[in-house]
């Protein structure tokens, strides 16, 4: 162990120096201009763009981080092109930033040091569907809704649902999760294999080329090393995903509670009762009020759970009645449920429109979503303390959460032109993250580390784990070209 740490200490100072550099290396040496000619010979004129509108589009995502456009955007059409373009970047020492749909929430695509954005949207094929094996392989341009639309006649679906219509390979890169995780897991549990192009153009198959065994004990788990690596270890060009059968029946329900504690207690008991609940979403009173105003609804302004059950039509009644009993025993009221698509959509409309409802509370403002996750038993305490923090600091932060996972989001609505408010929001999010860490939780349940949580990551996993991560990064990307300035 000691010699390993000594070896890391030899590497890490050099890495730290590299991370510290923020000036645009590429602009200084004119490397971009030389590279562009080579890019064009690989991808053609239509596959390379230096237009400012295109670059700006690829320098921002849906976070509040400002737009940091790359120097050039390339649009490869195949893994061979990705590899050739990466080799050119490697030769000229240009940063490489993979781009899926730009729906990230932590500024993961910002080109902090300039460089080349690899927009993968032209690689948009669904390859190799194996219905009986419940697996499918997709390219990075395939989005979650696109895949489920493709699969609709097969009776299969990919249930990980982060909200946005995100690229599936992008979801793998950020270890995305969503409202369904309590039943179906996150990307970590549902990626069987990845094809990744490394910084030097080498093409790696993390579980072996074409392999799609549902379980394996073979060697180090490279697939899950890349899941959540946020483009800092390689460019994902194929993902083999685990599929599930579309449930025969879906039932949605809503229930109001007198307190956060009673809502969370109900959640725990529902899980303990073995009800295969598919979604349990928590909205606090501020959020419910926002939803009422936005959608002209009349929910009781009090903590509310939105639930969804998946299963056979016979089991639905049993699941609903067990759940209704549990919620009643915990002081829940106004339990309403529905089975047909249209009424279910109406019941869940409040949850679906939460983001917009929050924004509508203060028109002209922007919204930032916090994202911490704690053990479920600590959820009532952290939510109560967080709400007190919001009130005492005069902040607008309606809360929506995947309470079945202990993960919740404060949708901070803020005026970006008010530096005092921006600062207060920033301090609040740091306090919130540290509050979660103090409760054995994590500073990011699903959005990733991106630009803004690198210091928090260090606090969360500790200096040795960070050193190990840096060692892995140095091993796979010694020149630090892959999405510099993110995660570590």
């Amino acid at each position, binding site marked *: 162990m000691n010699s390993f740490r000594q070896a890391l200490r030899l590497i890490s100072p050099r890495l730290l120096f590299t991370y510290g550099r923020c000036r645009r290396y590429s602009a200084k040496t004119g490397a971009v201009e030389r590279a562009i000619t080579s890019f064009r010979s690989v991808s053609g004129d239509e596959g390379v763009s230096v237009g400012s509108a295109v670059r700006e589009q690829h320098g921002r995502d849906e976070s509040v981080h400002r737009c940091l456009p790359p120097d050039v955007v390339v649009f490869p059409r195949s893994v061979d092109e990705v590899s050739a373009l990466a080799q050119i970047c490697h030769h000229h020492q240009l940063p490489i930033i993979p781009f899926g749909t730009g729906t990230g929430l932590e500024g993961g695509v910002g080109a902090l040091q300039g460089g080349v954005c690899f927009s993968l949207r032209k690689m948009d094929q669904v390859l190799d569907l194996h219905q009986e094996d419940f697996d499918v392989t997709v390219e990075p341009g395939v989005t979650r809704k696109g895949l489920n639309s493709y699969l*609709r006649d097969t*009776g299969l679906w990919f249930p990980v649902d982060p909200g946005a219509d995100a690229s599936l390979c992008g979801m793998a890169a950020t270890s995305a999760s969503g409202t369904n995780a309590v039943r179906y897991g996150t990307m970590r549990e549902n990626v069987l294999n990845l094809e990744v192009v490394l910084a030097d153009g080498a093409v790696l198959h993390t579980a072996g080329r074409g392999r799609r065994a549902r379980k394996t004990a073979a060697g180090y788990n490279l697939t899950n090393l890349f899941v959540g690596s946020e483009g800092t270890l390689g460019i994902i060009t194929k993902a083999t995903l685990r599929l599930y*059968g*579309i449930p*025969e029946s879906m039932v949605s329900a809503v229930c109001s509670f007198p307190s956060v504690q009673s809502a969370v207690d109900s959640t725990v008991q529902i899980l303990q009762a073995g009800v295969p609940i598919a979604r349990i979403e928590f909205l606090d009173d501020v959020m419910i009020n926002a939803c009422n105003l936005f959608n002209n609804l009349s929910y009781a302004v009090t903590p509310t759970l939105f639930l969804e059950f998946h299963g*056979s039509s016979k089991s639905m009644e049993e699941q609903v009645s067990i759940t209704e009993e549990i919620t009643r025993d915990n002081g829940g009221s106004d339990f309403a449920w529905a089975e047909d*698509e*249209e009424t279910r*959509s109406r019941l869940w409309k409040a949850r679906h429109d939460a983001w917009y409802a929050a924004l509508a509370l203060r028109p002209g403002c922007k919204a930032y979503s916090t994202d911490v996750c704690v053990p479920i038993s600590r959820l009532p305490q952290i939510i109560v303390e967080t709400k007190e923090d919001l009130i005492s600091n005069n902040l607008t932060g309606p809360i929506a959460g995947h309470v079945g996972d202990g993960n919740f989001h404060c949708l901070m609505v803020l005026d970006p032109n008010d530096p005092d408010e921006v600062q207060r929001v920033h301090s609040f999010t740091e306090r919130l993250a540290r509050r979660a860490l103090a409760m054995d939780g994590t500073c990011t349940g699903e959005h990733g580390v991106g630009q803004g949580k690198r210091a928090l990551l260090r606090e969360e996993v500790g200096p040795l784990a960070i050193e190990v991560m840096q060692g892995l990064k140095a091993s796979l990307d010694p020149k630090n070209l892959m999405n510099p300035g993110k995660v570590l």
Partner: protein
Amino acid sequence: MSARVLVGVKRVIDYAVKIRVKPDHTGVVTDGVKHSMNPFCEIAVEEAVRLKEKKLVKEIVAVSCGPQQVQETIRTALAMGADRGIHVEVSGKDYETLGPLQVSKIMAALAKKEEADLIILGKQAIDDDCNQTGQMTAALLDWPQGTFASELTLEGGKLKVVREVDGGLETIMINMPAVVTADLRLNTPRYATLPNIMKAKKKKIANVKPADLGVDVTSRLEVLNVDEPAQRLAGVKVETVEDLVGKLKESGRI
């Protein structure tokens, strides 16, 4: 109620596919391209299934015209809840030139043979956008028609249809038997679930030829040419408002 519903389902190129014109300009590329049920036909099937769930209809028969592959489309309808299927075999050149007139003759013949009380079709197919089959079928049968239906209710043996028209919504009352064509907002079709796909494999699909129904599928139409829409050209930037006005005048726009 003992009503029998006939639902027509068409196999078309999937809506998410990028269409390419064949190099010889006689049509679009269909080989190796993903096909699925026409979205408006999905809505039609869903409506029929909902009527059956409300016990207003006794049996749903899904019909499709085409080569062997259309059986997949019929199976999807069966997985959604149709009871049995009829595959009207049309292949080769006849299939390439198959259009609303021939299909409506086939639907009319089947409606009589199966003693159907209601025919539900999609309002149009997304490949030819004809929006003719429902109307022609009603005319051939001399049945009332409720087209562009966004709401359908059975009231005392009659059909109340709310139609989506340019000016808004029109509500009509028609006698049965009738033809209804489904518009987008009629319902949200259910997904075929695995258990239902399994059950659908046991449901029967009968094979029939157009000649058996006394229908001649020769087409009176000949496709002369198929072309892509003109490529969008790059815009031109001008420096001043005068230049802009000048360019607009030049191209005859003002």
